[in-house]
């Protein structure tokens, strides 16, 4: 990635354990760092169920945003099924999130090794990487890595001389945020439009072409080589006890040093923003933080004071750790116009299948647009609460909730700004978005 490099390279890191150079993404470089030793160890000394046991013991949870325990997800699959599929979700699209892109560009072999280990554990002969259609360099790096891996006998038949075989297909998306939802991704991979499916049955029972299927995020799978190499217990000892591991936090918005930071869970959010990322632009006061990607409820400056970056702590604060995309907002920013950026996005990305989401996202966006246009009415604010409440929990997939949560939290925590805009027909902060 061009621009500000992430800080803090440590040998014990899961991802940022080396200095990025022009060839650090290659097979030679990855092997030089101990790459594919976990795969060799698994094929030589472990059974598939041993790999699953280590991942379960590690406490690893899904890094795509849902934070679901990975070992549990794998355990739902009937390993006796004649066909099991593994899909790697590389459709990174949650605004504020850019970690999977870093993995694909800089450690593609670490992802490939993670995919192979997961496929081994799940008895999956075929794995698919569903990659965002816009991604160009990530796609070329991944394809290059697979080419190298095939030539080296790491992908395909008889991997490393064992009986294990796995092919990895790279599939490009078509530009749809909802395809990051796992059942939507599966429909897209089957050549259909990406409508989410009703659940149950969950993909682990009935997924890709009706077969048991596991869908895991890029960062999730790229953790697996470390876990297999050093053991699930060693991973479980990283970070916070309740939600262990390392995460790639993406800092964006009004901070002096935006970029990607690998930190253990349980890390101080304040420290991440004010020390590691150099604080708020222009030395301004902090106004708000969206802690885990655009869908997660916004927090005020006072709410993040003592906050640590782990799921239970974020949940207690009324938000979510999500995908690790920390969006920082400086004092003086117009929260009404900022919310409009999000309502426009969710309206655009609602797939149209469920009525509450299809209609609700359009209504919310229309109302915000009217307010921003200086034509807001007193009833608008009540509707900006009633409509998202009507969406929450009433849709097939999480996109409905993702669209509702920002509106509810912005209006609840910055209601005075919305009131001011409606009453005075103009922004309290001159409509400012830049710091």
């Amino acid at each position, binding site marked *: *990635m*061009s*621009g*500000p490099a992430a800080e803090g390279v440590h040998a014990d890191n899961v991802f940022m354990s080396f200095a990025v150079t022009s060839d650090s993404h290659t097979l030679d470089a990855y092997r030089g760092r101990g790459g594919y030793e976990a795969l060799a160890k698994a094929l030589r000394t472990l059974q598939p169920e041993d790999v699953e046991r280590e991942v379960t013991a590690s406490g690893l949870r899904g890094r795509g945003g849902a934070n679901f325990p990975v070992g549990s997800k794998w355990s739902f699959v009937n390993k006796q099924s004649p066909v099991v599929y593994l899909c790697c979700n590389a459709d*990174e*699209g*949650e*605004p*504020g*999130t*850019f970690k*999977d*892109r870093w993995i694909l560009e800089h450690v593609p072999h670490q992802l490939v090794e993670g995919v192979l280990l997961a496929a081994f554990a799940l008895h999956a002969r*075929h794995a698919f990487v569903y990659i*965002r*259609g*816009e*991604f*160009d*360099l990530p796609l070329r790096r991944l394809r290059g890595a697979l080419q190298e891996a095939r030539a080296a006998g790491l992908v395909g038949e008889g991997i490393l001389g064992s009986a294990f075989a796995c*092919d990895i*297909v*790279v*599939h*490009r*998306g*078509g*530009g*749809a*945020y909802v395809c990051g939802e796992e059942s939507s991704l599966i429909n*897209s*991979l*089957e*050549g*259909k*439009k*990406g409508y989410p499916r009703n659940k149950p049955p969950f993909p682990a029972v009935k997924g890709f*072409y009706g077969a048991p299927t596991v869908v895991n995020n890029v960062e999730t799978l790229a953790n697996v080589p470390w876990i297999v190499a050093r053991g699930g217990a060693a991973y479980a000892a990283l970070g916070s006890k309740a939600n262990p591991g390392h995460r790639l936090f*993406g*800092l*964006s*918005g*009004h901070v002096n040093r*935006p*970029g*990607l930071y690998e930190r253990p869970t349980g890390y101080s959010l304040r420290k991440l923003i004010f020390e590691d990322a150099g604080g708020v632009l222009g030395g301004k006061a902090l106004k708000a933080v*969206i802690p885990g990607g*655009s869908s997660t409820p916004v927090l005020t400056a006072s709410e993040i004071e003592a906050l640590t970056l782990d799921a239970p702590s974020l949940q207690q604060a009324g938000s979510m750790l999500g995908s690790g*995309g920390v*969006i920082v907002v400086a004092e003086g*920013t117009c929260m009404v116009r*900022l919310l409009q*950026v*999000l309502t*426009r*996005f969710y309206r655009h*990305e609602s797939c149209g299948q469920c009525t509450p989401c299809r209609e609700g996202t359009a209504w919310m966006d229309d109302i915000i647009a009217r307010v921003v246009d200086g034509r807001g009415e007193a009833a608008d604010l009540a509707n900006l609460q009633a409509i998202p409440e009507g969406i929450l929990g009433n849709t097939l997939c999480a996109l409905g909730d993702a669209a509702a949560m920002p509106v509810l939290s912005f209006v609840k925590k910055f209601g005075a700004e919305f009131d001011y805009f409606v009453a005075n027909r103009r922004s309290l902060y001159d409509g400012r*978005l*830049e*710091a």
Partner: protein
Amino acid sequence: MKEGPGDTDTGGLREQFDRLGGTYPRQMSASLVLPLLQIVQQQKGHVTAADAHFVADYAGVPPAQVIEALSWYTMLHRQPVGRHVVKVCRNIACALRGSDRLLAHVEKTLGVAPGGTTADGRFTFLAVECLASCGTAPVMQVDETYHEQLDEAKVDRVLEELR
């Protein structure tokens, strides 16, 4: 497999389709729909209904399924686009870093609003959602290439090189 409409299989599409199909497990030809549409678009710039029928024939799925996919995925163009497609991100991280300014600047420079194509057919200008480059915002993608940490001068340099 049936032949597609006469003018559809130009530039050896079928060979490219075969090559792609060879990378997927057998019995999964339906999965080829989106990648095949992408190949057509790469070759021709946009995808027509006749192309969709050609893809449906090749993949062995109902034409309605392909046409539906064609209209559903935002990266597929059903109308001709300019020689270069300029996508400026308007989502939250870029908005906080000045995408409003950049969008206005590109609009002024190219003389078309988002969604439009310049009269000389050189540029199509789109305002797009998050490109997953929030740490280096504001960003735009021109054709396949990302341009990060933009300001007006940098935008000018990128566009100037393509004129």
